[in-house]
C-alpha cells in the first residue's frame, strides 16, 4: 500500500457520500451507537477485574461488593447488546437504501442512454455494473461501517482504558504493535504478486474453457478432444502451482498475527505480574489488561482486510458511476412538434452518417418517399441495413443533413411521437418475460380482448396461441425461450398489428423460419403494408421486385437507388448481385 487513497478514489468517495447524505440521521445514530458500544464493551473487563479483586482467597470474599458489580455488569451487557443491534440495523438501512438509490438511478440511465452506447457495450458488462458491482459495493460499504469504524474506535478506546489502569503496560503494548502491522503488510506484499499470478492464470484457463466448451461441437467435429485436454492440463498444472503458493502464503497471515498477539499477551503478563508484586496494580486489573491485550490487537488484523475490501468496493462504485455519468440522449426540444398521425411522406436530404469518424458510411444521401410507397433495402448480409432503420427511428442522429416526416424534420419533433408513427418488426425478435397478452398489448395497453384476438388472427398467430397451455395468458420466459423463432416473429407482428401505425419498418426473415410460417409472415406483412409507407429489409426476390424504390447497400453505405428495371439497366452492383444469385 503506497498510498491508501488515490485521487480517483477520493472523487468516488465524494460521490458515495452524496448518496449517504440523505440518510445522515441514521449515519449519526450509527456513529454514536458505535462509540457507545465500544465504550461499554471495554468497560466490562474493568468490572470483571474489580469483581475478581474482591475474590481474594478462602474466606476473603466480599459478596456484597461483587453483587453490586455484577448487577452493574448485567445492565451494561444488556445496553451493549441493544446498542449493537440498533447500530447494525442502522448500517443495514443506510447500505441497502444507498444501494437501492444507485441501482435505481443506473437503470433510469440505461433507459435514457443513446443506443450507440448500448450497441457498443456488451450486455453482460452493463448488467454486471448494475448488479454485481453494486452488490459488491454494498458488501464493502456494510463491512466498512460495521468493522472499520468500530475497529478504529476500539483501538483508541482500548488504549485509553489501558492508560487509566497503567501507563507502563500500555507503553509496552503500543511498542509491540508496529511489529504486528509490519508482519501483516510484509505478508500482504509478498502474497499480492502471487495472487496476481494466480488470477492471471485463472483468467487464461477460463478463456480456454470458454473457447473449447463453448465450441464443443467444432472440437468434436475435428476430433480435437485429446489435444484440448493436454493443453488444459498444462494450464491446470500451472494454476495448481500458483494457487498453492497464493493460498498458502496468504493463510500465513493469521497464524503470524496470532503469534504476535501471543507475544503481546506474554509481555503484558510479565510486566503486569511484576507490577502486581510491586503493588502497582491489583490482580483484577491485570486480568482486565490481559483481556484488553487480546482486544487491542484484533482490530489491526481486521482493518487490513477491511481496507482491501473497501478499496474493492470503491473500484466497483467507480464503475457504476462511470455508467451513470455517460452522456444521455439529447433531450427533445422544449418546443418540439408532436407528430399525431403521419401521412407517411419521408424525405432524406444530404444525409451524412457514420458510427465512427474514421469510417465514413452514408454520404450525401437523398431519398424521397411518397405516402404509401414501399422501399426495399437490399444487399449482402452485414452490409449495414440496420443503419438506415437506426436513422429512421432516430435511434441514432444523423451527422448532418435532415430526415423529415410529413415535411417536419425529425429533430424538431418529439421522439415519442415519431416512434409512435412507426411499426417495427425486426428479425431479432425480442419479447419480454410476461404473458402472451402483455407482449401483444405492448403498444396499446388498453386494447380490448376482441382487438387482441383480431390482431393475432390478422397476423396468423391466433392458431398457435390457442394451442398453448394457457392460451393468451401463457407466461413466456425471458426472450421467449419456450417459443420457436417463427412463433416469436408472429407475436412481434401481432404486437405491431394491434396499433398499426402509418409507417412500417419490416425485416424479412432470412433463415430461421420454416416455409409454412414464412408464407404466413409474408401474408401478414402484405396485409400491414397496404396503404402504408414501408421500409423493408428484403431477402426475397418477389418483395424486391414489387418495391417502388430499391436501395442497394454495400459495406454500410448506399451504393445504388432505383426500381428493379432501372437498376438492372444500370448494370451495377445490383445487377451483379441479382445475376450471381442465378448464376451457374
Amino acid at each position, binding site marked *: 500500500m503506497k498510498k491508501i487513497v488515490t485521487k480517483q478514489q477520493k472523487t468516488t468517495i465524494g460521490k458515495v457520500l452524496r448518496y449517504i447524505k440523505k440518510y445522515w440521521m441514521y449515519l449519526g445514530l450509527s456513529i454514536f451507537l458505535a462509540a457507545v458500544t465500544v465504550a461499554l464493551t471495554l468497560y466490562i473487563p474493568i468490572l470483571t477485574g474489580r469483581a*475478581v479483586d474482591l475474590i481474594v482467597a478462602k474466606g476473603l470474599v466480599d459478596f456484597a461488593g461483587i453483587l453490586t458489580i455484577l448487577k452493574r455488569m448485567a445492565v451494561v451487557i444488556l445496553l451493549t447488546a441493544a446498542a449493537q443491534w440498533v447500530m447494525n440495523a442502522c448500517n443495514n438501512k443506510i447500505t*441497502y437504501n444507498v444501494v437501492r438509490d444507485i*441501482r435505481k438511478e443506473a437503470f433510469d440511465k440505461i433507459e435514457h442512454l443513446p443506443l450507440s452506447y448500448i450497441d457498443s457495450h456488451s450486455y453482460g458488462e452493463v448488467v454486471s455494473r448494475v448488479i454485481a458491482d453494486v452488490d459488491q459495493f454494498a458488501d464493502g460499504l456494510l463491512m466498512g461501517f460495521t468493522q472499520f469504524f468500530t475497529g478504529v474506535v476500539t483501538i483508541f478506546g482500548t488504549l485509553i482504558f489501558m492508560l487509566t489502569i497503567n501507563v507502563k503496560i500500555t507503553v509496552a503494548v503500543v511498542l509491540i504493535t508496529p511489529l504486528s502491522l509490519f508482519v501483516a503488510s510484509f505478508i500482504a506484499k509478498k502474497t499480492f504478486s502471487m495472487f496476481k499470478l494466480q488470477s492471471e492464470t485463472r483468467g487464461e484457463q477460463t478463456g480456454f474453457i470458454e473457447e473449447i466448451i463453448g465450441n464443443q461441437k467444432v472440437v468434436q467435429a475435428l476430433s480435437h478432444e485429446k489435444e484440448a485436454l493436454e493443453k488444459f492440463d498444462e494450464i491446470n498444472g500451472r494454476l495448481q502451482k500458483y494457487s498453492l503458493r497464493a493460498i498458502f502464503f496468504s493463510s500465513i497471515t493469521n497464524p503470524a498475527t496470532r503469534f504476535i498477539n501471543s507475544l503481546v499477551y506474554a509481555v503484558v503478563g510479565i510486566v503486569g505480574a511484576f507490577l502486581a508484586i510491586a503493588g502497582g496494580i491489583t490482580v483484577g486489573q491485570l486480568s482486565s489488561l490481559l483481556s484488553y491485550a487480546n482486544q487491542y490487537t484484533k482490530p489491526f488484523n481486521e482493518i487490513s482486510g477491511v481496507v482491501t475490501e473497501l478499496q474493492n468496493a470503491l473500484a466497483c462504485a467507480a464503475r457504476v458511476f462511470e455508467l451513470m455519468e455517460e452522456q444521455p440522449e439529447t433531450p427533445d426540444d422544449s418546443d418540439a412538434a408532436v407528430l399525431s398521425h403521419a401521412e407517411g411522406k419521408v424525405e432524406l436530404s444530404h444525409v451524412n452518417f457514420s458510427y465512427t469518424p474514421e469510417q465514413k458510411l452514408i454520404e450525401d444521401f437523398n431519398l424521397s418517399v411518397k405516402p404509401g410507397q414501399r422501399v426495399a433495402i437490399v444487399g449482402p448480409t452485414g452490409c449495414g441495413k440496420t443503419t438506415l432503420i437506426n436513422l429512421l427511428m432516430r435511434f441514432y442522429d444523423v451527422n448532418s443533413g435532415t430526415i423529415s416526416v410529413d415535411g417536419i424534420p425529425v429533430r424538431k419533433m418529439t421522439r415519442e411521437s415519431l416512434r409512435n408513427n412507426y411499426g417495427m418488426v425486426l428479425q431479432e425478435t425480442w419479447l419480454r418475460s410476461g404473458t402472451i397478452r402483455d407482449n401483444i398489448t405492448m403498444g396499446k395497453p388498453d386494447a380490448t380482448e376482441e382487438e387482441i384476438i383480431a390482431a393475432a388472427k390478422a397476423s396468423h398467430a391466433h392458431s398457435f396461441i390457442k394451442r398453448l397451455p394457457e392460451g393468451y395468458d401463457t407466461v413466456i420466459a425471458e426472450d421467449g425461450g419456450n417459443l420457436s423463432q417463427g412463433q416469436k416473429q408472429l407475436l412481434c407482428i401481432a404486437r405491431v398489428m394491434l396499433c398499426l401505425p402509418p409507417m412500417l419498418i419490416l425485416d424479412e426473415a432470412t433463415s430461421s423460419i420454416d416455409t409454412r410460417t414464412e408464407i404466413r409472415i409474408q401474408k401478414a406483412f402484405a396485409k400491414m403494408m397496404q396503404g402504408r409507407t414501408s421500409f423493408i429489409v428484403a431477402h426475397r426476390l418477389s418483395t424486391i421486385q414489387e418495391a417502388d424504390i430499391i436501395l442497394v447497400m454495400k459495406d454500410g453505405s448506399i451504393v445504388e437507388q432505383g426500381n428493379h428495371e432501372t437498376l438492372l439497366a444500370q448494370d451495377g452492383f445490383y445487377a451483379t448481385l441479382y445475376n450471381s444469385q442465378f448464376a451457374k
Partner: protein
Amino acid sequence: MKKLLVYLKDYKKESVLGPLFKLLEASFELIVPLVMAAIIDRGVAFADKPYILKMCLVLVLLAVIGLVCSITAQYFAAKAAVGFSTGLRHALFEHIEKLSFSEMDTVGTSTLITRMTSDVNQVQNGVNLVLRLFLRSPFIVFGAMIMAFTIDVKAALVFVVAIPLLSVVVFGIMLVSIPLYKKVQGALDKVLGITRENLTGARVIRAFNKEEEEIENFNGHNEMLTAAQVYVGKISALMNPVTYVIVNGAIVALVWIGAIRVDNGFITQGEVVALVNYMSQILVELVKLANLIININKSIACGNRIQAVLELEPSIRDTGVPISEPSAKTAGGFAVEFSHVGLTYAGAGDESLTDIHFAVKKGETVGIIGGTGSGKSSVVNLIPRFYEATAGSVLVDGKDVREYSLKELRDKVGVVLQKAVLFKGTIRENLAWGNGSATEQEMAEALRIAQAKEFVEAKEGGLDFEIEQGGKNLSGGQRQRLTIARALVKRPEILILDDSASALDFATDAALRKAIREMEGETTVFIVSQRAASIRHADKIVVLDDGAVVGLGTHEELLAGCEVYQEIYYSQFKKAAGGEQA
C-alpha cells in the same frame, strides 16, 4: 458432493495431517489460560519473580509451537485443497468433452463453464476451510469446557448450560436466515433479469415508448429487493448482540459461582481468571464456526451442481472397435446410406426426423434443402454421429456408424457448421486443427478451394496472422471460408457444408461450389442450404419438410414433380424469370 471426495484420495496424507496439526495448535492455545492462572496464583501471590519469568517463557514457547503447527497445517490444507480442485477440474473437463451434442443442448454451455470455474473455486475454498477449521472450532469449544472441568466441576457447570444455549442461538438464527437469503437471491435475479431484458430489447422498448413504464416496473422490483435485504439484515444482526449477552451473562455467573467456590476454598483467584478466559475463547470460536458453516453450505451446493454434471451420461459412447483394415467397398459402393432413420431429441415429444431413407454413392454431391425446422441439420449431424439415430441406422462405407470408433468415423468426415468458429492462434494453427501433419502446400490448396487464399495472403504474416479469440478480427465471410478450409485440410472422404456459406456473397458462393466440384479424389459432398441456387446443380437433391423426405432427385426432376421444392424455388426465383436467368 460425497462422490467428489475421491479427488482428495491422492492427498490422504495432507488431509489427515492438516487437521491434526491444527488440533495440536488448538491444544497449546488451551493451555495458555492455565499458565496465566499459575502466574497469578503462584508468581504474584508469592512474589516469585523467577517463576513468573519461567512461565512467560513457557507462554512464548507455546506461541512458537503454535505458530509452527498452524503454518504446517495451513500448508497441508492448501496443498490438499488445491490438488483436489485441480483433479476435479481435469475430471470435469475430460467429462464435458465426452458429452454429445444432445447433452450440450440441454445443459447449456454457459452453465458448464460456471461449473468449471466459479463452482470449483468455491468447493476448493470449502475444502480448505474444512481441513483448517472444521475440527478446530468445536475442539476449542469443548476443549475449553473440559479444561474448565479440570479446574472446578461445579463452576464448569456454567459452561454446560452456556454452550448448548449458544449453539441453539447461532444455528437457530442461521436456520432462519439461510432461506431468507435465498429469497434475496431470487429478488436479485429478478432485478438482473429486468436489466438484461431492457438492454437486449432497447430498440423495441424505445420504438413503443415504454421507457417510463419499464423504470416503474424496475423500481417496484428494486424496492422488493431492498425490503428483503433489510429484513434479513435485521435478523442476522441479532447474532452478535445475542451471543454477546449469553457469553457475558455466563461470565457474570462464573464470577459469582467462582466467588462462592473461592470463599469455600475449592479454587483460587487465578483459576477464576482462567475460567473467564476460557469463556471468552468460546465466543470467538463460535463466531468462526458460524461463518464456516455458511461457507460449507455454499460449497456443498456448488459441489452438488458439479456432481450433477459428472453424472451426466454421454448418450453417445465409443462402442465400436477401431478397425484398421481399409474400408471395404461394400454392396453398391454407397458412401453414406440412411436406412429408415428416425430421430427424437432428448426431452422432445415428437420425432424430429421420420423414416429418412436414401443412399449416396461415393463422389456424389448431395444438396439438402427445406425450411428451418425441417431437419436438414439433423440429417447431416447423424453422419459423424453427433446425435444418435433413435430408429433405423446410418451407414458409412456400408458399415453402421455405431460400429466405428468415434475418432475413426470423425476423421473420415469433415463438417463445416453453420456458426463459423475459429480459435485463438495463427491461421496456420487453426488449419492444423483439421490435420496436424498438413504441409504448407496442402494448406495453400485448401485455402484456394475455400476461396480464402487471397485474403489470407493479404493479411499481415499470411498463414501466421494471429486470430483473436472468437475470430473477432476477421469478417463473417472470412471466418466461414477459413472454417471450410480447415475441414478441407483434413482431406475428408465425406465433406458436409451445413449452411456454411451464408455470409458469402452469391459470386463467392458460386466460385466455392465450383472449386469443390473440381476437387481431386472421390469426395462425397453434402451441401445444406436455404438457397435453391446453392444446391440446384447437385447430383441429388433431398427435399425435407417437417422432418420427412418429400422429394429426392435432380433439380429438373424435382421441379417437375415436387410441390415443396417448387414452392421454395419459385419463392426465390420469379416463375417467369427462372428459366431465362439460369
